[in-house]
């Protein structure tokens, strides 16, 4: 197995294992520049992630993030998409799992029970997009201050905010 073909072979191996486990109809596949992407509905997300971790050897959650596709040209799927980048260290294979969620009150099951490293990544997604992760032990804001109420990376949030940045008392020299 040469280095160039190794990831592809590893992906094929992952797909074969998944096909044996799930059969058809659970997820759909697309490829882009060598990336293998699995789109999965929210109800089967944990099942798929568990199978990937335990049966396909994807033990490492490299990244967890989200995107808001509001107003994206040609978009037909859900508004938000949360992606999980998984790696298999033995074969070098990697796979991206994507799950869509919609307004109002977007929520997904947490990946924390599978990968404790998802803790802060899910908090960040929650902070920026307002997607709640059910079962997360401590779902607080991580970057913005606690009293912040908006979700700033949503596309319908204005770049300059809604005045939060100027919502402070003004100190004058006489008072300080």
């Amino acid at each position, binding site marked *: 197995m040469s280095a160039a073909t190794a990831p592809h072979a590893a992906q094929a191996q992952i797909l074969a294992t998944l096909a044996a486990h799930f059969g058809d109809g659970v997820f759909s596949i697309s490829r882009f520049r060598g990336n293998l992407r699995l789109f999965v509905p929210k109800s089967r997300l944990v099942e798929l992630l568990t199978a990937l971790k335990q049966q396909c050897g994807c033990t490492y959650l490299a990244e967890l993030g989200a995107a808001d596709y509001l107003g994206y040209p040609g978009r037909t799927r859900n508004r938000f998409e949360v992606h999980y980048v998984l790696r298999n260290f033995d074969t070098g294979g990697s796979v991206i799992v994507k799950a869509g969620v919609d307004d109002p009150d977007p929520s997904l099951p947490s990946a924390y029970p599978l990968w404790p490293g998802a803790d802060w990544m899910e908090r960040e997604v929650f902070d920026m997009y307002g997607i709640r992760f059910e079962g997360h032990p401590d779902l607080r804001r991580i970057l913005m201050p606690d009293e912040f109420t908006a979700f700033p990376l949503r596309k319908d949030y204005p770049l300059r905010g*809604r*005045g939060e940045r100027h919502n402070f008392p003004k100190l004058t020299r006489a008072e300080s």
Partner: protein
Amino acid sequence: MAMNPPTSPAFGQRAGSDLIITPSGQPEVPENVFLTTMDSVVSWCRKYSLWPMPFATACCGIELMAVGASRFDIARFGAEVMRFSPRQCDLMIVAGRVAMKMMPVLQRIWLQMPEPKWCISMGACASTGGIFDTYAVVQGVDRFIPVDVYIPGCPPRPEQILRAIMDIQEKVQKGGTTFGNEGLPELRARERYMIAQRDTAPGAGIADERGDEARFGYRIPGGPGRLGLEETR
């Protein structure tokens, strides 16, 4: 204030030390005696022993470090004692952008500094928000704390910081009193402006500073098209 002539032999035996200078129509002033005001002497002492509080939050802070190092040597101006406790400082140097999460911290540190105190807003970001016109960055610390001297630049050259220290020194000498620094007319005008600003409706005060996009011919993604008055305050 009068200073007695030194009593060491080298000075005491100088022939001229008993000379009395009497300008016409003025009180007699012996040689080696200076008359001045208490305020002026106190300000003179203060201006050569400014203790800066380096509130360095971003890249400007690196330039501030260069000013403290040997090449530019802020010690030549008596301001080298950078203290990291605000209670020991009288010159705050806000160097870098201040995020909205940091603003309460900045205000608290400002309040913790003992009077009299001065503030330098260093760099484009601290003074105006710079290129970071986003929801998370405060568009100028002078909206929320009093600022005496602004330094333009991104980052400013160390010479500019030295210049700002010299300006502060001048300000201290001119406007300082023994009990505070309310003396300077610009400061009092600034105070009145701040107090007037406080009661304007949210958004009204600075709305005319916004909407520069059309003037400069660029558009910020997701920006002004959706902004109303309420959102720009």
